[in-house]
């Protein structure tokens, strides 16, 4: 079994720089395997910075997240938060 969710990217610069790093870190903080992709395209590893960079996902675009593992719902919740937090708030949250 796996869980999946489609999320619209909020940060203005897209899934790039700090939001991308935060996204990959969040994937790696969880035990589930997480993949990311567009629509029906073959999803790629969400735990790799180069893979996430290769998506070139822009603000306003929808990405599909697929998580498989013991904490898949928690992983999707945390990743959705990263993708829907404006970049300045993400920076504030990190202090």
């Amino acid at each position: 079994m796996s869980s999946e969710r489609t999320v619209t990217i909020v940060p203005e610069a897209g899934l790039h720089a700090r939001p991308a790093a935060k996204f990959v870190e969040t994937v790696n903080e969880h035990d589930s395997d997480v993949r990311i992709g567009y629509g029906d395209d073959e999803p790629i590893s969400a735990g790799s910075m180069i893979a996430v960079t290769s998506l070139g996902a822009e603000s306003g675009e929808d990405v599909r997240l697929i998580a498989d593992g013991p904490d898949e719902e928690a992983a999707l919740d945390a990743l959705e938060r990263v993708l829907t937090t404006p970049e300045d708030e993400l920076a504030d949250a990190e202090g």
Partner: protein
Amino acid sequence: MTETLNEDRIDTLAPTDHIALDSAPADKRACIEYLLDLLVDAGRVEDRDAALEALLAREEETTTGVGMGIGIPHAQTDAVAEPSVAFTRSETGVDFGSMDDEPARLIFMILVPESGADDHLSILSTLSRALMHEETREALYDADTPAEVQAVLKEAVA
């Protein structure tokens, strides 16, 4: 994405004088300056200080060491008039502080004017996609001339 990095653009983005195969400085900042100077010497950069500042500000935000032995320092800055890509290699590797702890051995620099946000993201993502393939990375390690590097890139983004 409004524009894409395709094989026809490699010659314009990364002419052979943007490519240095000698071992790059092992220090991250020195390596970034080394790549920048390739673009300065090629006449692509109108304001070296502004370009360096933009590149270092981007690194400050989060490292451009994307793992798999790849570093892609990049910035949008009006210190350049047209999108430009430079490339070098390091046998020992440069510590980019990437999440997978692998030192960067293949290092690209991307500078794009402020107005080119879409182009910037498109070059970065296409290059990253190409570099995820082990055969592309191996071919870049093995290339003997800047022209060979161009040929590898053209095939990888085709």
